[in-house]
């Protein structure tokens, strides 16, 4: 699994976006940060809570100059139907049917043949600024991910459970 500081593998994949098929290329994403969240499968019972959760928080992430990208091994048709089932998803849902992108990020579960629940936040230079993964049966916290994004954007030393408004750590340290 890629760790902070690693260069992010580029991608240019088909995706479902706003109810239609499109292409999504990392090189063409202009925002300061890119949040890539991998999830195991469409049409499951934990993934939708995350997919909808990130969709609901889309504006807050956009306010933090962050583009959200979802990825699973399902194809675009499945993503389109899944997004329709969920009431519409306004960020690109990338199709990675071979799992090649998941493998490039080091989070492909070879036993289950799906991507782990892994989150990567890429910085302006498209290097990994943050990465995490959790078991297939546990959903991620959208609020926590947003907190990380906000913390990363401060460029400061953020203590545990830092949230906007809380004092930063000592300055002038190389971290």
């Amino acid at each position, binding site marked *: 699994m890629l760790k902070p500081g690693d260069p992010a593998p580029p991608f240019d994949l088909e995706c479902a976006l706003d109810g239609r098929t499109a292409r999504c290329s990392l090189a063409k994403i202009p925002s300061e940060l890119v949040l890539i969240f991998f999830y195991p*499968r*469409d*049409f*499951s*019972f*934990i993934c939708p809570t995350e997919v909808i959760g990130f969709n609901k928080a889309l504006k807050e992430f956009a306010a933090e100059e962050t583009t959200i990208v979802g990825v699973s091994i399902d194809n675009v048709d499945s993503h389109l139907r899944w997004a329709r089932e969920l009431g519409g998803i306004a960020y690109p849902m990338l199709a990675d049917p071979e799992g090649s992108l998941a493998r490039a990020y080091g989070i492909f579960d070879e036993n289950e043949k799906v991507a782990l629940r892994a989150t990567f936040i890429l910085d302006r230079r498209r290097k990994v600024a943050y990465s995490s993964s959790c078991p297939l*049966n546990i959903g991620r916290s959208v609020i926590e991910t947003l907190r990380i994004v906000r913390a990363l954007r401060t460029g400061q030393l953020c203590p545990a459970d830092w949230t906007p408004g809380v004092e930063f750590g000592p300055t002038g340290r190389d971290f």
Partner: protein
Amino acid sequence: MATVDPAEKRRLFERLSSIREIVFGVQDGVLTTAGVLCGLSGAVSQHSQVALAALASTAAGALSMGAGAYLGARAEAEVLRAELHLVRADAAEKPYTVQEGLLDELCKEGLSREAAFRVVRLLSTAPRALESTAEAKMFGLGGAVLGKPALDGVVMGIAFLVGAVVPLLPYMLITAQRYDLGAALLATAFTLFGVGYFEGWLAHRSDRWRSGIRFLTIALIAAAAGYAIGLAISPLGATAG
């Protein structure tokens, strides 16, 4: 169009669930008693002693088989109940694991992931339906699997008795030493063939006679082996006497 009453079908399945005890009990009763008769006939010369020993063996066998079936079914039911309890507690705490598990099972059985998702989502609106479907599909557990230990024990004991009477009755009725064992074995052979045929009939098989022949073959082998062992140990009885 012919319709099947699910309640009636369910009752039929419940009755059929005793077929294992019936077939096992009858077969064991017939074979054990025929084996005892063959073995003792080889070792003991007096007809009445052989019949008495076979009667004692029948009583002990029926009680033992009944108790064994009861204890076995009870132990199985207790273990399954404990497992079901764990599964239900886990499902109550983490319903999504049940939903995901059931979804996977339905996909394995041929439903598309999308269709399986819709089925599971629909089932999730009635927690009891989701629970029972998940138990059956994911773990192969259901109410019928838990069985009825007391009934199993009684059925097994009676089946053994019925089976044992088959060779015993002609043996006791025909006192002529030349024909007693032959009559017992003939009755045994017919009964075993009949049990096999009956099992084939229940299973709606076209080659019911094949099941009968299988049962009969086993009986012949068991009887021959019992007789041979009786002959082999008869010198020991002579030495001890």
